[in-house]
């Protein structure tokens, strides 16, 4: 375990922020209270390590080698399996973490509701991939052969319609000077690279767009609630809203860039080798920006019917898991103000989990964490 930073007073608040997403780590949906809201990343020797905030009173982040995680606290059985999964597959980014978490949740070790949701989400993912693919193909056809598109759209679900789509794609491949199977493969890769975000013209909202929307809903709700409150609760709500706002501002710009890049899939596939890293980078960046926000948004929005005291307790829990923006993402005239607020103010609010001191399992917290899984996107 790394030593706590004793040089705090000589550093600027900003220097407590991670500099990149990889340094911030990927949120691990553990249900063991001590490791709730912790993040995994690799160290300078490429070994996995876990960043834990719940046994420090906001004074810093504890770094635990991944292999030592089960030794420091008794993991729930769900977490035992997730821990192994992350280790074996070296899960280090939000996409892979989501899949790992869903697969483990299907075991039922986090409860039947989490298992049901996970099974549903995995199926929805496949549907989303398939729909995204169809939408891209139809867009390519529309852009390349506008007059053919409406008829093909009507018939696409029929075997004959699908045959005609293939024929049309062959013609387009020819025009693009690509072999048909190459076009097919590139469209498939484009589909895989874009489906988590979803294309702008899709009738079905992409998962990451949905998380953005939910986070925006949370932000607006926090500000409205903060207006009615005074003191600590109001400050904390505004702070959470501020962090969400900065994150969403960057997300919106990334989305604009993404939508601009993907607007013409026919053009993209022609220069796919050049475009692929750009699109994957934008999609990946959005996933990193939104990593950890969905459970926070769910916690807040689901607490709407509770009273001030209970909401204040929810806020405090949210603060301990708030995904702070890495240093390199904080830009513009607000830089100093945002960096200072994020790094130093949150540290005064985060409490340690009592359970590590008493050794008793906080079974209410375990149940709440499992409940978040049952809602996971």
């Amino acid at each position, binding site marked *: 375990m790394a030593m706590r930073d004793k040089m705090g007073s000589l550093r600027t608040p900003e220097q407590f922020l991670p500099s990149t997403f990889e340094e911030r780590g990927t949120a691990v949906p553990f249900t063991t209270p001590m490791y709730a809201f912790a993040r995994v990343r690799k160290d300078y020797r490429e070994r996995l390590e876990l960043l834990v905030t719940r046994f420090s*009173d906001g004074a810093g982040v504890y770094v635990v080698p991944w292999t030592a995680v089960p030794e420091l606290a*008794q*993991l*729930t*059985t769900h977490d*035992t*399996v997730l821990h*192994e*999964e992350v*280790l*074996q597959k070296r899960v280090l980014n939000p996409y892979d973490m989501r899949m790992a978490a869903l*697969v*483990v949740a*299907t*075991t*039922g*070790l986090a*409860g*039947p*509701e989490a298992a*049901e949701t996970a099974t549903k989400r995995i199926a929805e993912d496949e549907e989303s991939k398939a729909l995204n693919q169809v939408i891209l193909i139809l867009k390519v056809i529309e852009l390349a052969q506008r007059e053919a598109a409406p008829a093909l759209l009507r018939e696409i679900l029929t075997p004959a319609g699908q045959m005609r789509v293939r024929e049309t794609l062959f013609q387009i491949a020819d025009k693009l000077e690509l072999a048909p199977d190459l076009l097919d493969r590139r469209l498939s890769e484009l589909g895989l690279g874009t489906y988590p975000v979803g294309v702008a013209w899709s009738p079905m909202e992409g998962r990451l767009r949905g998380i953005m929307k939910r986070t925006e809903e949370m932000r607006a709700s926090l500000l409205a609630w903060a*207006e*009615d*409150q*005074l*003191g*600590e*609760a*109001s400050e904390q709500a505004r702070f959470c809203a501020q962090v969400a706002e900065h994150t969403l501002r960057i997300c919106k710009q990334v989305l604009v860039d993404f939508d601009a890049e993907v607007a013409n899939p026919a053009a993209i596939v022609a220069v796919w080798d050049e475009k692929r890293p750009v699109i994957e980078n934008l999609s990946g960046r959005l996933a990193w920006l939104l990593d950890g926000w969905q459970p926070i948004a769910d916690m807040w929005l689901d607490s*709407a*019917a*509770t*009273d*001030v*005291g*209970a909401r*204040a*307790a929810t806020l*405090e829990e949210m603060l301990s898991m708030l995904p702070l923006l890495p240093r390199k993402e904080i830009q513009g005239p607000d830089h100093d103000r945002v960096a200072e607020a994020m790094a130093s103010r949150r540290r005064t609010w985060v*409490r340690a989990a*009592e359970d590590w001191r008493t050794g*008793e*399992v906080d*079974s*209410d917290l375990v*149940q709440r964490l499992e409940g978040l899984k049952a809602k996971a996107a």
Partner: protein
Amino acid sequence: MNDQEMQEASIEEISERLQTIAEPKFLAAVQTLSAGAVLPEVDRLMTAVRPRLRTLRPPRAPTLKQLLCRPFEDLLHSGASESENGIPRTAIADLWPLVTSQDPIGMQGLNAKLRTIFPTDARGIQALGAQLWRRAAKSLGQISATDEAARHLRAMRDALAAADVIEAFKQAVPIKPLPRIGESERNVILETLRKLAADSLPANGFLLVVAARLQSPGNLLEALRDSEAGVPKAAIQGLGTFAIARIEDRAIRFEKTISTARPEDLAREAERLIGDLATTHDALDAKGRSELERRTEGVSAVVRTMLGERIIDAAPAAIAAALPGPDGEPSKENLLAAEAHARAFSRSRRIAGLLGLERQATSVAAAIRKRFEARVDELREQARAAPEQNAAAQAGIYQSVRMVELAVGAREAAQLLRTARPGPSSP
């Protein structure tokens, strides 16, 4: 049916009607009730409709009367006047005329000003409240210190005199109920006590409000006992009386819900009640302890019987619902019910020792563990005999591991998981 019964029946009918009428009519009815006279019947109706009101949360500015009560609203209860569990809502009927009659013009002025403040202008409302509380504390003047009938008025006066610091405390520590007093809360409390002492203001109003906002009022006694806060003995005694009354009230409510509440809720409340009893007992002086024991005599026995019968003895059958039955695999609802009981059982084990139920609980835990270990062995055998059913067997194994985790413990479940799996591999 006598008059009392007829009245109860009418209130119940009205209450039911209020729960089902359309939102706008409901909100209008509540507004009328809130602005009207403070009567026990009205109070009972408001208590019944509060859950629905909370979900609708219309933005509304408080009335002057509500604002007046804000510093001690955590102490208000709907129980009998004799209860030492805070301040009965009916006492507001005595307070209001005393406050308004002293300075009717001033109060009218404040009321008019309140109507101009936007409902969401928390700062504006608070600022006006501060003026109101100062006036009210002054209006209450000299209330007899020994007149039992004036007990509630004294409590309200003391809270109003300390209103600024009480409101500041609520803003600094907004969580309610606060599960425990941590370092930062303790500092706020001690700092506030120092300020009250420096301003020669009574501490008891503030202390009672803090206690009312805690999950266990005994925590405050504990925190003050360990500090050098120099709190007057009378205030500590008042706090002790309040803590005892709260536990007594809680125990009565607990007993009433035994036959209808879910096992998980019963176990949670039982754990808190017993924990509260233990904390408060340790924090009181000898006289307080004796009073606590007298007033809560029988509580432990009631909890013991409930835990023993409804949770511990019932656990094997309730948890076995997670196993396949004559109709095949358990439904999701059966699984959830089995899990809920498993959690209740696990929670009951935390206080079983205090109630003389440890041996019984340990024996039941061992039986549950054995049952699910046998199930895991069955499934492993099935998978060996018919590999094509491996996935179904694996699902059953995980389910059994989970039940052991919830009912017996994570350590035992981890051992079972290790024996059931060949080694670290994908689920």
